[in-house]
């Protein structure tokens, strides 16, 4: 399982410092608009560098520049052709997925599957959405909750884990358990394991 620094490294390699900072902020909270000084403060880079970056990104249509009265705000641009891709990229490298993955790392040897499902996986989330997390493994609910406690503050969202031991998962899926089978049909974002592992644990081929 990757650590936060591994996935962090991805975005550091892909983007220069300022671009990474601006994109991380704007594309992890796509419903929010930020003004210049907010961005500078959050990014931890200089004012001039941020201003230049914001101009480049808005010229390219990656972010939008919004004027409200005398304030200028910047926000991720949903009309950008790669809006969804950038959003997913940020989530996986520095956002929700990365943070949760890192938080679960100490329990790695007892987690077979960790997957985000629900509104966030469908990319239909809003500011107040919880993160719904399916865990299959030997780790207990108590351990998962403790491990994720800090992460909740970091990403500023509730995380709702549902934890299944592998045997229970297999028998429930086989028995046609409503909740599990519904989740298995939806898009999910894997943090630990993958579709193949999931199918293996369910001991049946999954429609997907």
């Amino acid at each position, binding site marked *: 399982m990757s650590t936060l620094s591994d996935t962090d490294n991805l975005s550091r390699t892909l983007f220069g410092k300022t671009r990474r900072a601006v994109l991380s902020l704007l594309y992890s909270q796509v419903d929010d608009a930020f003004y210049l000084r907010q961005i500078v403060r959050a990014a931890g880079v200089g004012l001039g560098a941020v201003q230049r970056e914001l101009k480049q990104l808005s010229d390219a249509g990656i972010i939008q520049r919004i004027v409200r009265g005398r304030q200028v705000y910047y926000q991720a641009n949903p009309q950008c052709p790669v809006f969804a891709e950038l959003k997913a990229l940020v989530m996986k490298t520095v956002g929700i997925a990365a943070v949760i993955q890192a938080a679960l790392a100490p329990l790695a040897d007892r987690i077979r599957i960790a997957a985000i499902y629900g509104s966030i996986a469908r990319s239909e989330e809003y500011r107040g959405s919880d993160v719904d997390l399916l865990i299959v493994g030997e780790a207990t*609910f108590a351990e998962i909750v403790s491990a994720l406690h800090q992460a909740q503050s970091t990403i500023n969202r509730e995380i709702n884990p549902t934890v299944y031991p592998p045997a229970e998962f297999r028998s429930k899926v086989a028995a046609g358990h*409503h*909740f*599990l089978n519904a989740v298995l049909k939806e898009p999910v974002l894997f943090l630990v394991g993958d579709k193949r592992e999931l199918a293996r644990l369910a001991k049946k081929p999954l429609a997907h």
Partner: protein
Amino acid sequence: MADRDLAQCRTPHLSPDWQLNIAYNAALQAATAALAAAGYRAARDAHHYRVIQSLAHTIEADPALILQLDKFRKKRNITEYEQAGAVSEQEAIEMFALAKNLRDEVEKWLRSNHPELL
């Protein structure tokens, strides 16, 4: 009363959702009992949340226990209103153990701090 709930929990064929609910109620009752013994009532607003948090001050419960109980509270809210069935048997078992543990802790605390109530 909490004892009756916990005994019911062990009935087989109850769905994990239901088992969680029963065990959770038993835990909440124990926490409420401790609060009442200390001479307080929780405000009606965010009632369950407050009762759970009060455990830190009444029986001086372990922060990890309070965290878990609050997580079960949220899980219960979700399963009631949105996702029926998002509770595993494993979780129901853990909630049951937590409720039993809490009940024992509260009883122990009552014996030493408010024996007149028992």
